[in-house]
Structures are given as structure tokens and as C-alpha cells.
């Protein structure tokens, strides 16, 4: 058993998820280009999904299918929590929708203003 | 718009614009009778003679002779003489020597604003016949053509002593009931007015300054 394998996989996923969130957020906050900001958002979204999945994961657990292999009484300890997985699915769909809308905005902004620089979209303020 | 005809009661006031006619009275002055009781009239004349309020309006060089009257040397207060700054309250008008046409206009105004009985004393030679200004283009020669005069104190100029004497003479005349200048003015109003208008060419005031 080396050090690496001691770390549970869920933790790795969790950490990389959190890392992705930070990267995504960094992208959204620093990149001037709207497309890049959208990419940042996607990264962040993905990171959240990874965090969600990692939360539900039970190390060494099986798929949450209740059958002979996993008796109901033992299920809680043996199977991976199915709820986060289900949630992730929904979250992905929603994330996709948001990304799509953002991209649509990007297209329209470019059409309307001929630029994708967010710094130039500051006419309404104070 | 008032009736602007020159009638027995009203004056024409033709020197005024139509707007100004609204602002000045156009009544014709009226003469007053003496009190019906002789004693009252005498008493009133006594009071008038002993309370001579002089209009503080120095119309010519003689004005300078009026100042000493109030000083310790002459003390006209003794005779009931006092200066009064407004014609409404004055009874004596002392014409201080020569009167230019311009001043005459003011003299007429002030005289008409005095309330009767009112008395006029002329100082110096100029009001009598023009004096040294007899040939001036701007100084009248015969004052009594324009305002009835009660007393002349001649000289150029008469000294304050003469003035005191003339005041005493005026008192005597008033007590005798002989000072009716105000009534003479009113009775011969049209004549006086014609004379006045003959010399005062820009007559921009009502015919009688109430």
C-alpha cells in the first residue's frame, strides 16, 4: 500500500473538483473575453459536479442496485449513494442549459456590439 | 377718467398726461370766510400772529439771513417763530431774494400746499423789481405777479434785524386782520395762474397743487 492508494478516490475527486471550481472561478473573474468566461463557468460547473459525485461515493461500494448481491439491510454501507449521482445528472442538464444561454448571449453581444470584451459592456452603471 | 373741463369746481390740469390726471386732484381752491363772530376771529388772528411757523425753504441768497434768526443774538423764538420743514404745517413763506423761473415753480407748489391762512414775506429788492437781475433771462422781476405778498423787507440783503422788524410788522398786520393773501390768491386764481404759466413754460403739474 503506498501513500497514493491510501487516499480514497472520493477525496481525489473532491479535491480536483474543488480545484476545478477555483480554476473556473478564476477564469470567470480574470478573463476579459466573454467566451473564456463561459469556459470558466463550464469548468466551475464541472468541478461542482465532481464534488457532488465524490460526496456520494462510498469507498469500495458497489453500484446502488439492490439485488441479491447487496441485501437491503446491508445496502446503506455497501452501495454508493445514488442520490448525488441522480442530482448530478440534473445539474449537468441545467449547467448545459445555462452554458447554452450564455453562449447565445455571447453571440448576440458580438452581433450587437462587435466585441466580446466584457470591459466594454459597462455603459449602465452607478 | 375725470371730467377735465375747466369749470367752477374743477381745473383743467392740462399740463398733465391722461394717466397723471388720475393721480392729482383737480379741485379748484376755495376762499374761506372769517369766523362769523368777530371776537373769535380776532382771537384766532392773535394766535396766528403769535405762532408763525416759517417754511424752511431757502429760495435765494436771502436764505442765509434766516439762519441767524434762531441764534442767541436774534432769538426769533421769542415771537413764536419756528421753522417747519413741511409746507403743510407752515404758515409763513419767506421768499429769500431773487427767484429764478425754476425756483418759482417750486415756490408756487409749496405755497399752494400750505394751508390757509398763510403769509408771504419777500426779502430784498429782487422780488420787487428784479434788483440786480433786472435784465436776466431767467429771474422774475415782479414776484407779486405770481404769488400774493403780504410784506416786503427791502434791501440787498436786509439784515436779520430788518427781518425781525418785518416779522413784528407782519404780526401787527395779522392781528389787524389784513393778511388775506390766501384768499386773494384764490379769488384771482386765474390771473395768477395765467401769469405763472406765462413764465413757466414746462407746466408739468396740476393747476393747483393741493
Amino acid at each position, binding site marked *: 500500500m503506498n501513500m497514493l492508494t491510501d487516499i480514497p478516490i472520493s477525496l481525489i475527486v473532491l479535491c480536483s473538483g474543488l480545484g476545478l471550481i477555483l480554476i473556473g472561478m478564476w477564469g470567470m473573474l480574470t478573463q476579459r473575453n466573454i467566451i473564456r468566461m463561459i469556459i470558466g463557468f463550464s469548468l466551475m460547473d464541472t468541478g461542482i459536479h465532481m464534488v457532488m459525485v465524490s460526496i456520494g461515493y462510498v469507498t469500495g461500494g458497489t453500484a446502488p442496485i439492490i439485488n441479491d448481491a447487496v441485501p437491503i439491510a446491508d445496502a446503506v454501507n455497501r452501495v454508493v449513494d445514488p442520490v448525488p449521482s441522480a442530482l448530478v445528472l440534473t445539474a449537468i442538464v441545467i449547467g448545459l442549459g445555462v452554458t447554452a444561454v450564455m453562449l447565445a448571449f455571447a453571440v448576440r453581444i458580438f452581433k450587437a456590439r462587435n466585441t466580446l470584451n466584457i470591459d466594454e459592456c459597462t455603459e449602465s452603471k452607478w | 377718467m375725470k371730467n377735465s373741463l375747466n369749470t367752477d369746481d374743477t381745473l383743467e390740469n392740462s399740463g398733465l398726461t391722461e394717466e397723471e390726471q388720475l393721480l392729482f386732484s383737480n379741485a379748484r381752491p376755495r376762499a374761506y370766510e372769517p369766523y362769523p363772530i368777530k371776537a373769535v376771529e380776532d382771537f384766532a388772528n392773535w394766535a396766528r400772529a403769535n405762532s408763525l411757523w416759517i417754511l424752511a425753504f431757502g429760495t435765494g441768497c436771502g436764505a442765509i439771513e434766516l439762519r441767524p434768526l434762531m441764534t442767541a443774538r436774534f432769538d426769533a423764538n421769542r415771537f413764536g417763530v419756528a421753522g417747519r420743514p413741511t409746507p403743510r404745517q407752515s404758515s409763513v413763506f419767506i421768499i429769500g431774494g431773487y427767484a429764478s*423761473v*425754476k425756483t418759482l*415753480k417750486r415756490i408756487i407748489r409749496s405755497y399752494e400746499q400750505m394751508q390757509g391762512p398763510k403769509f408771504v414775506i419777500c426779502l430784498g429788492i429782487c422780488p*420787487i*423789481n*428784479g434788483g440786480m437781475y*433786472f*435784465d*436776466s*433771462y*431767467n*429771474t*422774475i*422781476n*415782479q414776484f407779486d*405777479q405770481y404769488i400774493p405778498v403780504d410784506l416786503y423787507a427791502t434791501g440787498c440783503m436786509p439784515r436779520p434785524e430788518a427781518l425781525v422788524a418785518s416779522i413784528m410788522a407782519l404780526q401787527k398786520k395779522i392781528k389787524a386782520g389784513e393778511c388775506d393773501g390766501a384768499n386773494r390768491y384764490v379769488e384771482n386764481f386765474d390771473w395768477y395762474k395765467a401769469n405763472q404759466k*406765462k*413764465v*413757466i*413754460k*414746462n*407746466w408739468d403739474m396740476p393747476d393747483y397743487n393741493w
Partner: protein
Amino acid sequence: MNDLMERLQRDFGVDDITVRKPALTTFRVKKDSAETLIRELRDREGYTHLNFMTCIDYIEDGIFTLVYMLHNYDKKLSLGVHVDISRENEDMVSIHTLWAQAWTYQRELREMYGINFPGSPRLEEDFCLEGWDDIPPMRREFDTKEFSEQRFGHREGRHSEEPRDHMKVELYPNRGGDEK
């Protein structure tokens, strides 16, 4: 002073320069250049004060002589600028633009002599005489005695004496006015 006069002679052609007193010099200048000259004196030469302006009627020569009296406070010198204008064409350039108070003098000159100063403020208003309806009284063709008698009348009984003779009689009646 002489420098100034020389310069004025050269530039403006002034003549008739007379030193009346040590501090008073008069000279004559043409009507057309008078205003420029006075302006020059005021702005360049320090004659900043207008003492007065007046007029003399030379009816014999058919001219009015206008006199502008200027004063220099620094040098304590006065200059009298004489300008001749024709009696028939009695127009003169107004100097109220140089000294605002000049309009008063000009109003007076207008009233008394009938001299016109185009542009001078309130020129037509009465100054001293109110409602004057004759020729201006200071013009010498105006007969003031006749006017006075006609307008203000004449009271009989007035007679004139030579003061010297009169006083002799008054003072020495016994000697028939003889001083001795």
C-alpha cells in the same frame, strides 16, 4: 513742456501756443483732430483730469471757441485746449467717452449755446432752464434785456445811478457831492 508742444505741433498741427502762467499753457487745435489729441493727452501724457469745458462766443468771427481744460496731477500742469467751431455748424465730437462726467458740461453747452454733441447722453434734457423756448441765452445775438422785459415785465419807478456819484451825494450831501 516744450517737447510736448513740439510733438503736438508736429503730430496735430497745433498753433497759437500761449504760456499764460508757468503752469498753464493754451493752444489751439483743429476741430477734426481735437478728440484724438485730448485722448492722447489723457492716455499718454498724464492729463487725466478734465477741469471743465466751456465755450466762448466770438460772434464777430462767426465761431465758438470751445475750451477744454486738462490737468496733470503728476506734473501739476494745466493745458487749455481751444477748439474753434463754426457758429453755423455747431457740432462737436462728444468726449463723454473719455470722461463720463463730460456729458454734464455738454448738456449745459447744448442748453446755453445750442452746440450739439452727437451721442452724448441725456443731451436733450433740460439742464438749468426748464422749458426754454427761445434761442439759447448765452449766444450773443440773444438780447437778454429785451427778453426779460417782454417776459418778466418791468416795474415802473426803477432808476439806475453811477455808484461813485451816488455815494458822493450820499456821503457829502452838504457839499453837493464834492469830496473835498
